[in-house]
């Protein structure tokens, strides 16, 4: 019941007060400055360079004309148009399918719901490029189904339809998980109240259930939008002539060394992705009303007529069958000479493991270093933005999450621009790979730690300070042990992400610093299918070990690894 008074303090007094308070604690002040500096160096500086380079002419002067000229290049127009069409089809399609799957798995009596939920989300731990490789081996020009079984000569899976198919199927696990969470948070009371007022089942669904879940569905759609725009691997492999922005920017810089055109394409890539990110953030902020109503009882489980129930079940089975057949083909490809042409069993491809020990070393060491440094940075940043009050706190939180909205290609180009010149000469080093891995994966780790910190009683922190412990001691002895499992989870997120960093790493490696994942990708593009699959299985194995490690260390479900 605090009343507002007529006299307001002069604007800025409050900020000055906060600054004064921080300044009294040098350790805290220095930490904030250091973290802010790191965020600037790792995220803001490289990305703004991309936009700046896109906005200048040969002489180095600021110019938009240059941009206008570039836009008129057919190559740019085509890439923009293609990306636009892809987003227009892929995003709604993926969102609708994932929402449907999420809904039936949460709110209906479809048979074997628990098992289905696990089977549907399992592809998240499949080996890398399971979908793309499986698609090519089954439906490619010489695919098992298209060529051998159906005998189609002119069918091609390459192109936009292939990309859309892959993106739609591959978004289902994560997106349906997010949407499921939203449906599960809807209180049954709402739906029962509507039924009580006389609304029929379908009416309740469309007037209560979906509107309440809409923010969650939309934020899933925005995540999908960002990933479709940023997707580099899928169009590279099944695009073949269908050029999109992410791939075109890469080619311009890596093959034709056209920095001006490359950065212009990156800027075109960055703008919609950032828009998606900002909208996503905005929605997350507003989503609270779903949880306010209380998740205690969950939504009503709707019973469906038997034929619809089994139709839905069949559909889910189809998705599961599709995914697992791709996985089976993946294994088949790794253990045969040339699937499906030559089905002789062989372990030859696994010699690639021994040929790439250097790459494995590089991958493991850069990922490990990124995971440890990034994990600590994420935890400290999370502590600062949740438990401290200083000007710029929200901005720091925002920037820490920003890499989500920055396509990997843009990060790669940004790092080339930022660290290839004085005062940094870091291109070609392991160091730059570590940095880009931190920048790429910090959002996940940050969110995990922030979520854990928000659940902590704020008095715990204060009690420790009150008893005379310094900030550092409080952080190490009270905060870290209490958020231990999120802290570990964050480290493992970053490690896993770093091991499969393609889009930005591919621009920053040199022959000396090649990685397992980039080597696998190179094998795929040059047609060494079996070798690529063998390396994919190596990464798969490492992931499985990691999963077991997580369950051990954090006593949490491994599925949490995938939840945002």
């Amino acid at each position, binding site marked *: *019941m*605090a*009343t*507002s*008074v007529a006299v*307001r*303090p002069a604007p800025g*007094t*409050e900020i000055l*007060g*906060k600054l*004064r*308070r921080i300044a*009294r*604690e040098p350790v805290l002040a220095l930490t904030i400055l250091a973290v802010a500096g790191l965020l600037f160096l790792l995220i803001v500086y490289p990305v703004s360079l991309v936009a700046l380079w896109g906005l200048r002419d040969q002489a180095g002067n600021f110019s938009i004309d240059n941009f206008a000229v570039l836009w008129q290049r057919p190559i740019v127009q085509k890439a923009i148009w293609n990306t636009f069409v892809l987003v227009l089809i892929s995003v709604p399609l993926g969102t609708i399918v994932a929402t449907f799957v999420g809904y039936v798995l949460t709110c209906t009596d479809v048979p074997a719901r628990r098992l289905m939920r696990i089977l549907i989300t399992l592809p998240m731990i499949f080996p890398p490029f399971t979908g793309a490789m499986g698609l090519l081996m089954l439906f490619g020009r010489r695919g098992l189904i298209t060529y051998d079984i159906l005998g189609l000569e002119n069918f091609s899976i390459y192109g936009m339809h292939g990309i859309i198919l892959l993106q739609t199927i591959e978004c289902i696990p994560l997106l349906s998980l997010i949407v499921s969470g939203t449906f599960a948070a809807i209180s049954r009371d709402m739906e029962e109240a509507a039924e009580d007022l006389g609304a029929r089942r379908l009416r309740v669904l469309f007037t209560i259930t979906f509107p309440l879940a809409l923010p969650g569905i939309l934020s899933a759609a925005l995540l999908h939008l960002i990933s479709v725009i940023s997707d580099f691997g899928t169009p590279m492999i099944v695009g073949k002539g269908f050029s999109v922005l992410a791939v075109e920017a890469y080619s311009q810089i890596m093959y034709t060394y056209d920095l001006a055109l490359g950065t212009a394409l990156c800027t075109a890539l960055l703008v919609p992705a950032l828009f998606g990110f900002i909208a996503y953030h905005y929605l997350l902020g507003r989503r609270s009303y779903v949880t306010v109503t209380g998740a205690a009882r969950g939504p009503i489980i709707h019973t469906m007529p038997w034929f619809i129930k089994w139709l839905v079940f069949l559909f889910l089975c189809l998705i599961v069958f599709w995914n697992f057949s791709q996985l089976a083909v993946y294994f088949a490809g790794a253990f045969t000479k040339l699937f499906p042409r030559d089905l002789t069993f062989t372990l030859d491809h696994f010699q690639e493991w021994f040929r790439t020990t250097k790459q494995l070393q590089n991958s493991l060491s850069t990922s490990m270093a990124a995971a440890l440094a990034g994990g600590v940075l994420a935890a400290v940043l999370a502590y600062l933005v949740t438990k401290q009050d200083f000007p710029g706190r929200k901005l720091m939180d925002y920037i820490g999450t920003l890499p989500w909205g920055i396509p990997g290609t843009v990060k790669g180009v940004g790092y080339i621009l930022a660290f290839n010149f004085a005062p940094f000469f870091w291109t070609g080093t392991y160091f730059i790979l570590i940095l880009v891995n931190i920048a790429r994966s910090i959002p996940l780790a940050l969110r995990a730690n922030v979520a854990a910190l928000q659940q902590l*009683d704020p*008095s*715990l922190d*204060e*009690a*420790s*300070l*009150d*008893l*005379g*412990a*310094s900030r550092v*001691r409080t952080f190490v002895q*009270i905060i870290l*042990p*209490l958020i231990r499992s999120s802290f570990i989870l964050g480290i493992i997120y970053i490690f896993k992400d770093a091991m499969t960093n393609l889009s930005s790493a591919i621009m920053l490696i040199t022959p000396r610093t090649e990685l397992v994942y980039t080597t696998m990708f190179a094998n795929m593009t040059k047609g060494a299918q079996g070798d690529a699959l063998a390396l994919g299985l190596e990464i798969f194995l490492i992931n499985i070990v990691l999963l077991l490690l997580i369950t051990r260390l954090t006593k949490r479900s491994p599925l949490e690894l995938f939840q945002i």
Partner: protein
Amino acid sequence: METRKASSVRLEHLTKMFGAITAVSDVSFEIPAGALVCLVGPSGCGKTTTLRMIGGFEEPTAGHIYIGNQCVDAQPPYDRPTAMVFQSYALFPHMTVYENVSYGLRVRHKPTREIEECVHSALALLELQGLESKSPRQLSGGQQQRVALARALVTEPEVLLLDEPLSNLDAQLRVRVRGEIRALQRQLGITAIYVTHDQEEAFSLSDFTAIMQAGKLIQVGKPMDIYRRPTNTFVAHFVGLSNIVHVEALEVRAQDATVRALDHVIHVAVPPPSRDGKFAVVLRPEMMHLCPADRDGIAARVKTATFLGPLIRYVVVTGAGLELTVDVTNPTAEQLFSEGTAVAVHLPDQVPGLLAV
């Protein structure tokens, strides 16, 4: 643990604004060393914010805080000689009782022997022996409360801060523990500031009670003085059920006054709050009596009668339409009135103070 060093606490024009909202507005008062002061007021009145500013968790927008004679404005919480008992207790869940209580001493790098002695005497003081290796989760609410208290006291603070420490306990335990806290505070002679929204708790515990409303300090004083002589109608209502009756001033003198309330002459033996003669009196329900209508008194009619165990609470309406609440303890047969009965209300001839209106 014997008597400790106690310090006085002085607040000077303390103000805290959150954006345009004033949470605490120009609060000044001094707490003598060794006293227990309760900050009391409705929720959102600024009492917890005031406590948190003393502990160093909130930066005052304006004003100063002195502990002893030292200004502590620039000191972060870990440098202040205060210790806080949090509403949620804030026991570290990953530490045992012993580790929790010894934390403040370990932070100060005390020798292990000394830590052991201090912790054991603190645990003994609060009757927690044998629970050293238990985790906070395994304790009952009352035990957790005492661990929080032990953890705060073991660092030998000059000022103990308590933020609604009993609000998570059930009603019976609350009464017991508040007695224990009071006894302990007296025994140690420590200065304590205690925040609560419960006036009964405040009255039963404190040497001085400070009433806050909407960020402002309204009245500070001994509990009985506040109850008997509230300075305004808010305090009068907050510290107990009151009938506030406007009076006509008959004689206003420097040291006392005579007034008329409802045709009844009342003498007030303290200096009136102003000379302008606009006053009201606070008539507590227990200060009045009800008699059958044929006796002397102010004619009224019973509106409601509520049986509350030790007393019957009547709401009566006077001929002038004024509603009065009258408590009758230990009623005689003739004091049992049903609703609608005509009665006579007997007012006191003296009241402890006047309210300016």
